[in-house]
C-alpha cells in the first residue's frame, strides 16, 4: 500500500512537472502569414497584390481617435494598414510591427523597388535558401556596377538578418530567430515573381 502511495506520488509529480514545463511552440502558421505580409509589402509595387496571398487591399484607417480611447489603441503602423484590426486580432501570435522593424521594412521596400527588382528580373541576383539574397550571374551586371551590386547585396542581407532577429526579439523569443529566418526564406521564394532565381535546399539555383 505504501509502495502504491509512492508510485502514485511519483506519477503525480511527473504529471505536475509535465504541467509546469510550458512549451511555447513556435506559431508556424502565424509566422508564415506575418512573413508573407511583410514580404508582399516589400516586393510588390503600390497597388499590386501579392500573387499568392488573398489579403485585403490597403485600407487607411488613421482617423483621429475619440477622446479616452487613445490608450487602448494599438500603435499605428503599416501593418495595421495592411491588416484590418479584427483580422489581425484573430491571429496575433506573431508580432512584426515595432518601430524598428517598420523602419527596416520601409528601407528594404525602397531598396527593393528601386534597385533589387531590376537585378532579380535580369537574373543577376536571386533568393538564397536561407532567406538572403546572393549573386547568381555576375555576367549580367556591367563591370562598372558590380561593386555596387555586391554592396547592395551586403546591405540587404544585413537588414534581412536584423529583421529576423528583431521579429524574434519582438515576440519575446530571441531563440526563434532561426525559425523566423527559415519561415521568411520559404516565403521569399513563394512570393518571388516568375523568372526570378532562387536556391533549393541543396544550394542549386533554379528559375521560378
Amino acid at each position, binding site marked *: 500500500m505504501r509502495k502504491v502511495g509512492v508510485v502514485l506520488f511519483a506519477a503525480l509529480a511527473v504529471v505536475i512537472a509535465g504541467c509546469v514545463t510550458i512549451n511555447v511552440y513556435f506559431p508556424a502558421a502565424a509566422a508564415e502569414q506575418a512573413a508573407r505580409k511583410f514580404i508582399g509589402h516589400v516586393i510588390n509595387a503600390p497597388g499590386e497584390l501579392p500573387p499568392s496571398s488573398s489579403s485585403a487591399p490597403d485600407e487607411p484607417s488613421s482617423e483621429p481617435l475619440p477622446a479616452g480611447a487613445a*490608450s487602448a489603441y494599438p500603435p*499605428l503602423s503599416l501593418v495595421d494598414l495592411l491588416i484590418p484590426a479584427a483580422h489581425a486580432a484573430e491571429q496575433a501570435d506573431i508580432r512584426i510591427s515595432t518601430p524598428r522593424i517598420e*523602419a527596416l521594412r520601409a528601407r528594404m521596400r525602397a531598396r527593393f523597388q528601386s534597385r533589387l527588382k531590376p537585378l532579380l528580373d535580369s537574373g543577376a541576383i536571386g533568393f538564397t535558401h536561407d532567406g538572403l539574397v546572393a549573386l547568381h550571374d555576375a555576367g549580367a551586371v556591367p*563591370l562598372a556596377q*558590380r561593386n*555596387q551590386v555586391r554592396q547592395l547585396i551586403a546591405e540587404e542581407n544585413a537588414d534581412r538578418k536584423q529583421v529576423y532577429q528583431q521579429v524574434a526579439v519582438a515576440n519575446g523569443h530571441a531563440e526563434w530567430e532561426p525559425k523566423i529566418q527559415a519561415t521568411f526564406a520559404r516565403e521569399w521564394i513563394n512570393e518571388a515573381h516568375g523568372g526570378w532565381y532562387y536556391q533549393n535546399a541543396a544550394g542549386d539555383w533554379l528559375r521560378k
Partner: protein
Amino acid sequence: MRWRSSLTACCILLVLCAPARAAVHVQAGLLTLPGVTAQHVDLRLEENTAGPPQLSLQIGSLDVAVLGWRGVGLSFEGSLARLQATRWQVKGELALSSTPGGALRQARMTAILDRDANTAQVVLDAGTTDLDIAMPLDQPSHLQIDASQLPLAWAQGVLERIWKAGKLGKGSVDARLSLDAGDDAVRSAGNFTLHSAAFDSSSGTLAAQALDGRGKWRLQTAGRRSSIEVDATLQGGQLLLGPLYAALPDHASQVHLQADFAPGSVRLSSVRFNDGDALGLRGSMAFTSDGEVTAVDIEAIEARLPQALQRYARSWLQTLGFGDVSSDGLLSGSLDYSGGALRSFRLNASDLDLADAGGRIAVRGMNGGFDWRASGSRDPTTLAWRGLRLWSLPLGPAHTRWQSRDGMVRLAAPVGIPLLGGQLRLQQLDWSPVSRQHLGVSLAVTGVSMPALSKTLGWPQFQGTLAGAIPALHYHGEQVDLEGGLSLHVFGGFIDVTDLSLQRPFEAAPLLQADIALRDLDLQAVTSTFKVGSMTGRLDGAIKGLRLLAWKPVAFDASLHADGGRISQRAIDSLSQLGGGLAGGLQSAVLKIFDSFGYSAFGLSCRLQNEVCQMGGIEPVDGGYTIVEGRGLPHIEVIGHQRAVDWPTLVARLKAASKGGGPTVH
C-alpha cells in the same frame, strides 16, 4: 609509358615514310606522347590513281594537356604528297569537336614535314583565324606559333589550367609565341595584340571588357602553380580588380603585371600602372581565386583629379554613397592592407578641391594629409584647408597638425575653426581607421549665430547664439555618446542638451536619446518663431528621457510652465488644439472682441509612450486640467479635457496650427 610513346612516334614516322603504293591502315586503341593522349586512333593511307595518296585520320578522343583539351574529337581528310626525297606535304580538311570555345571546328590544314631539316610546319586556315605552327620533328612539344585573329575563347582550356575560375569572353588576339609543353610544365613567351578582349571570373570580381592593347608576356607553369609576367600598352577598355574598377582612357596606358596563380589564390606580386595624365601606381595585390581581396599593398599612388576619380574611383565612391563628386587637385599616398586589416596608409593632398553633389561634404584648397600606421609612431603631418563644408555647416579656414601613434591618428594641437560668426574649437580628436572606426572628440562651440545656423539647417528662424562644450564625444561603430552638453543661448534664455547619445547611426532606425532643459526663455520670441500665436512671459521646462527612433519621437516626459504675461487669441486657439477644446465661461463671440488676455500661470505636460501622450497642466480640475489660468478681466481659463492624446494626431494638429490654417474656436 615512355617506350610506348617512342614506339608511337616511330609508328607515325614509319607510316609517313612508307612508300605510298598500297593502302596502309593503322589502328590504335591508345597512343600517348608527352602531354598528349589519343584514343581510338584510325589512320588510313590509300593509293589514289587520280592524284596523291589519300590520308584519313580519325581520333575518337584526344587530350592535349597544354591546351586544356579533353575528349576532343578529330577528323582529317586530305592527301599526302612527296615534295622532295625527305619532304612531305599533308593537305586537307581538319575538323575538331568538343574543343574549348569551339576551336578549329572547321579548318584547312597544310602541313609540311621535312625529315632532313627535322621540322614540321602546320598552317591552319579557319575562316578569319590563321595559325602557323612550327616544331622540330623529334621534339613535337616545342612549338613556335604565329596566330592571327585567334578568338580568345579558344584559349579557355589554357586559362583554366592556370586559373580555374577564369572565363575568357569576347575578343581576339594576334600572337607570336614559343611554347614548350611537357606533361607537367609549360613555358611560353611571346608578343600579343588584343582586340576588344574580355575575361571574367566565376564570382565576377576579376574581369575585363573591351581591352585593346599590345605587349609581351612570359608564362611558366609547374604542377598547379603558374606565373605570368606581362608588359603591355593598353588603349581603352574596362578593368575590374576586386573593389577597383577602371575605365581605361583611350590613349595609351602602360601596365606591368607579374601574376602568380596557385590553387586557391591569385597574387599580383608586382603591378605598375601609368596612364600618363591621371594615375600612376606601384604595388601588389592578392586575391582568392574567387576574386576576394586578401591583400593590397600600394607602395605609391599619385592621382590627378578630376580625371583619376572619374576613371578609377567612381564605382568605389558610389559604393560609399557618393555618386557624383566634383574634384580638382592632386592626391598621393600609399596603403597596406593585409591579413584582413589595414596596416598603414599615407595620404597627401595638394590644392585639393572636392564637393559631393549631395551636399554632404565639400573642401576647398586642402593641403597636407595623414600618415598612419597600426603600430609605433609616425612623423607629424599637417592638414590645412581654405574652406570645409560638412553637411551644410560652413567651416572656415584652418591649419591642423596630426600624429599617428599606436594605431590612432591624433590632433597634435588644439585648433579653432571659424563657424557662422563664432568658433568651433577642437581640443582633441583621436581617430582609429581600424578597431570599428573609433572616433573620440573633445570640442567647444562659442558664439555661433543662431539665425545663421537656423537658416543653414532649414529650421525656423531662431534668434540668439549657440555655445557649448562637449568634453568627450565617442563614436565606435554602433553608437555615438556625448559627455557634457550643448547649451543654446536662444530666445533670451538657455536650452541645455545633456546625456546625448546616438545608437546605430547608419542603420534604418537610429536611436537618439537626450535630456533637454529649457531655462528662462522669452515666450514671445518662442511663439513668434513657431508661428503659433503670441504669448509673453518667461518659459521654463524640461524634456526628459527624449528618445527619437528614426528621428521621430517615441518617448519623452515633457513639461513647460510660465509665470504669467499675456496670451493672444491665436495662441489660445493653438493651445486648445493640444488640450482638446476650450473651456470657460465665455462665448467665443465675446472672446473675439479681445486680441489678448492676461494670464497668471501656464503649464502643459506630455508624457509620450506607445504613441500616446498623457497630457497634464498646471493642476487637475474637474474633468480635465488647467493649461492657462487667467488674470484680470476678461478672465479666461484654458482647460484640457483629453488626458490621452494620440501622438500622430497631435503632431498633425500642431502642424496645422503653426501653418495658420484651420483651427477655430467653438
